[in-house]
């Protein structure tokens, strides 16, 4: 008999074809995180709507659990999340579900626009959902707070990744952070690069092995949420999201560094 792998295979994204069959089998809960108006116009069949702004208005575990229950998700329900913002908003929602203890969550491999441009099913029906009971098992090991970050960032085993665009990073970033702009994570039509591609890119940057990795971005952990899943997609075991990100860091007047003596902004055609 072949032995089972010790590690659970983590599914980061769900491809279009699998999602379609899971929808047909009614074995999945699909979450659309776009704004309510967009959702009402059209969405992937059976999807429920959880606009990111709604989640962020209060993302305390208790509230999140209520939302999860109201979407008919129990501990065993596979969930697929999608957006129209290259996967960043979906990632933030998916990460939040993980944080309260839901493990069966993945991202649709593509955006809703691409889904539609492929001519795939969509409708404007709002499904009738029966509420369920999800348990609360917080996973603090995937969250980084500012206090935590401040204590651990100088640790040689910790890699801190800034996922904002290059110019913003050059202008100011958390000391010790390296820059992996969110655009680097995707391909033209998928929200994440193929695994081998991603792995090679991260290896070049020496982002590998058992290091603890913390990602952050500008304000609410969306771009860095996508990075969280990018890192997980290649099997990196210890990734945390600094969910309040640079906005909080600056607000707390913690130290930042800047690339000095160069007028890089003037090279931009924006």
């Amino acid at each position: 008999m072949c032995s089972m792998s010790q590690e659970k295979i983590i599914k980061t994204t769900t491809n279009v074809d699998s999602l379609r069959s899971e929808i047909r089998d009614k074995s999945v809960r699909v979450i659309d995180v776009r704004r309510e108006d967009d959702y009402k116009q059209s969405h992937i069949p059976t999807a429920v709507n959880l606009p990111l702004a709604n989640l962020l208005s209060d993302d305390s575990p208790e509230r999140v659990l209520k939302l999860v229950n109201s979407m008919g998700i129990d501990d065993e329900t596979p969930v697929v999340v999608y957006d129209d913002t290259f996967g960043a908003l979906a990632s933030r929602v998916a990460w939040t579900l993980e944080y309260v203890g839901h493990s069966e969550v993945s991202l649709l491999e593509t955006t809703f626009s691409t889904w539609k441009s492929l001519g795939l099913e969509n409708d404007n029906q709002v499904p009738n959902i029966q509420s369920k009971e999800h348990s609360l098992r917080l996973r603090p090991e995937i969250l980084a707070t500012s206090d935590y970050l401040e204590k651990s960032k100088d640790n040689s085993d910790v890699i801190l990744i800034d996922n904002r665009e290059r110019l913003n990073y050059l202008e100011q970033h958390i000391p010790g952070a390296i820059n992996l702009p969110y655009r680097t994570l995707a391909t033209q039509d998928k929200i994440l690069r193929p695994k081998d591609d991603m792995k090679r890119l991260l290896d070049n940057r020496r982002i590998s092995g058992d290091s603890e990795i913390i990602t952050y971005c500008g304000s609410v952990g969306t771009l860095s949420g996508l990075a969280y899943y990018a890192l997980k997609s290649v099997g990196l075991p210890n990734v945390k999201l600094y969910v309040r990100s640079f906005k909080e860091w600056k607000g707390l007047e913690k130290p930042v560094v800047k690339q000095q003596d160069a007028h890089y902004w003037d090279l931009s055609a924006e």
Partner: protein
Amino acid sequence: MTVTDLKQSYSDSPKPKINWARIEEAENFANTVKLFRQGKYDEDSFRRYRLQHGAYGTRMTNDYAMVRIKLPAGEIYPNQIEKISQLSEQFSIGSAHFSTRENIQLHWVILEDVSEILRGLAEVGLTSREACGNSVRNVMCSPLSGVCPDEEFDSTPYALATARFFLRNPMSQNLPRKFKFNFTCCEKHGMVRMVDVGLIPQTRELDGSIQKGFKIFLGGGLGNRSFVGHQLEEFTPEEDLLYTSIAVLRIFDRLGDRKNMARNRMRYLVNDMGWDKFQNLVLKERAIVRATQSIVTNLEVDHTPSVIKRPIKISDESGSPNPDGYTRWLKTNTLKQKQSPYHSVFITLEAGDITSNQLSELATIIREFSSEGHARAGFVQNIALRYVHEDDLPRLYSKLLTVGLAKSGALTMAAPIGCSGTTSCNLALTNSHRLAKEIQRKFLELKLDQDDDLRDSSIKISGCPNSCGQHGIATIGFFGGGGRVGKEMFPNYQMSLGGRSDGETMLGVTCHRIPAKRVIPVILKIIELFKQNKKSNDTLKDWIHRIVNGKEDSEIKSVIDMRKALDSLTIPPTKEDDPDFYNDFGSDSSYHTKTGKGECAA
């Protein structure tokens, strides 16, 4: 059905004919960076290796590189532009930069990501190999070659063949210094007398048939010290093109100064030796090359004519037939080709910068409007779209307008050159890049692009004496440095007048030092003086040409007169009166000069 099956395809749009890339170079680069980081590769060897692969250093840091992508003969295809758009967004600053030598540069790239860029480039047949370092740099060709009404024949196939011959050729891997070829279309469009080897196509009648050949100029170049090139001989037949090129490279390789980095371009060798001696040496060497090549070496010149096919209109005829600004744009950005009813359309970019979004729009625009299906990089940080049908021009203008690429003045003085300056270059003393943008904005605001008297003049700015901004061949040229009042420093420019790169090529004559914040008022003052003193049918270029050659008889007779007329504008105010005077463009803190090590010589 999978996602990729349904990806939009443009299968009928032309694809590049030549693959310049080698995918294994990306892999090697990644491994070499790893070894370097592990300390298994010394600094000097790594730097040489990096430069040979087209990755240049960045201002005040070892963590970033600039990747210089070569566009041999300036040719670039839509799929290549799309790829560069993606790469600029993923690995650079979301913008790309068109250089003055038909390269596209991606700046502020993390050294560890360079190999990913090389990989992406290889997917579309592009390379950055030998774009830096002591090698044969990108082979340039006039953006009008093939369509210029004044040319004898199209030199593009020869430029491509030359690029192909020398790329990765062992002969050009370890030259004393960089080496540059420029092909052009005609005397007027120039740029052949300020480069190591400059070539103008020409023909002659021999035994009743027309023979193709070139006028070849050697030993010119812009830099800390600039020189004008010399014509090798009356006529160099096309069969001798390669032999001549090899002969010149061999002489340079053998006799060029490998010790003194500041004086090792070929122009110094020519200057030290004297032209007659050098000329003689080249002719002898060529005879040896011709006689000793063990096999007949030919340039693989591909004369297959490009397919000219007017794209089928995809979008409908919406919008007004003569949108706002169309006439102005038509006048200042387009040229009639020798092939009627086609036009070449020039897109001017602020100091060569273009966003990744604009690049991706541009790819679509090329497919929809250029009947040759690709674009050409120009001589002045710009892009030429050729073979645009006359009837499509208004529609093209509207399209360019929607993506911010319809700035007028592309073919006028209102499109200044600015090297990258302190935005990324280790050697820069001033922010020449931003200054060029400021001048362009001011010129367009004042509608100076529409002034026929200014049309053939140029403004070119370098951030240091090293001439990447080609200030030496500008009607009004500037190079950056620091000025001082007591303990306070301010950004300052040395201004030269009367430079040109056409049939009467000459280097600009030094005129005055102009503080950065006074450059625009000074240029406007020169224009004002010209207007007061011009003769009928005079252009600014002609007027300045007479002044620098002592042939002007009005109020401003010489460079010294000009200097006096501008004096009052150059006096530094006190810091209390005008603190902004002491800051460079793009900076709100006090100016100070700061430079790192240059890598033009590896």
